[in-house]
């Protein structure tokens, strides 16, 4: 009987659905999915060979990923690190130039962005943002076992993106090194990155 009560339909004010559709009409069009890039040593080496002319170039996402991996390695030592207690972060970095020589066809539409968070005690860290519907499980970050740093690289369209890190599935933290987004009662703490063309 309790289950029956719990399954009882709800009388919803039709105006609330009208209000929702008004918000939908005002919202920007659905975003195209970001390309997930996972740096990989063997693919990176293959990309280097291709960039040297050892093999034909392509503009596939996997090539883009390897290029991003190379650029990431080159730039990682140059970023300022910010310490905020247990969780440290490097600013999300746009890595655009290295990609240009590999995938000029998509250079103008997607930029490579690396997100990094240092959280040695975490067992799992994910990235969520407006680019993936704030899904806290979809974009898992990879851990570097040496220093507890978590990283993921994405290809994002130019524009303003909000994001946050999800530590151990429950703790939403904004990027300590990023620009804080406007507070919102309903939203978790989050940061903003502006990806330029």
């Amino acid at each position, binding site marked *: 009987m309790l289950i029956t009560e719990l399954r009882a339909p709800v009388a919803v004010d039709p105006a609330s659905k009208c209000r929702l559709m008004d918000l939908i009409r005002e919202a*920007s069009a659905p975003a195209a999915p970001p390309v997930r890039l996972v740096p990989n040593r063997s693919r990176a080496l293959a990309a280097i060979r291709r960039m040297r002319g050892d093999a034909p170039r392509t503009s596939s996402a996997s090539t883009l990923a390897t290029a991003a991996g190379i650029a990431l390695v080159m730039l990682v030592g140059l970023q300022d690190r910010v310490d905020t207690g247990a969780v440290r972060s490097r600013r999300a970095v746009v890595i655009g130039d290295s990609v240009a020589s590999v995938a000029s066809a998509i250079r103008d539409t997607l930029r490579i962005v690396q997100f990094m968070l240092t959280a040695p005690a975490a067992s799992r860290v994910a990235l969520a943002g407006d680019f993936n519907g704030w*899904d806290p499980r979809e974009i898992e970050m990879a851990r570097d076992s040496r220093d507890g740093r978590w990283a993921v690289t994405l290809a994002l369209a130019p524009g303003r993106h909000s994001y946050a890190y999800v530590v151990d599935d429950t703790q939403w933290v904004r990027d300590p090194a990023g620009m804080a987004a406007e507070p919102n009662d309903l939203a978790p703490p989050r940061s903003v990155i502006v990806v330029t063309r």
Partner: protein
Amino acid sequence: MESDAAVVKRVLNGEVEAFSILVERYFDHYVRFAVHLVGNREDAEEVVQDTFLRAYRALGRYEERERFGAWLLRILVNRARTVSAMGRRREKLFPDQADAVLPETAQAHPEERAALREEMARALDQLGRDQREAFLLHYVEGLSYEEIAAVTGSGISALKMRVKRSCERLREILQGVNRV
């Protein structure tokens, strides 16, 4: 009836108004679910509205191999968790709000139903978040454990244990009522 996936394609092709088909199909149902999850109607409507907005913005990421309803439910559960984590108080649904979540036509025994509603809300309120989610998804929404795993991100064996323990806990709380 046009499939959810076909409607999604129309929206992605620029027919924004087609999204209202999905709103009509799922809004009421998920408000009911959210009321049980977050414990009050105001937050529930806000959570569901926010869920649809987020789903719309992320529609390009929806993949047909997953049921649209399950995909939407995953966003809803995440939003409800966030609201709960922010310390929103679970409020008793009685007496003012209870009628709003029950059909007007089902008022055969108002006193008995009012008592049952009170027991129901009190019992759900005493479950932990994970147990409440698992119980509602399995017994009220009728989802399989595989579907619940996809929605919550938890393992199937853990979910089975949560549902089992939630039933035991509800029986304890509702001792003497024997209605679960």
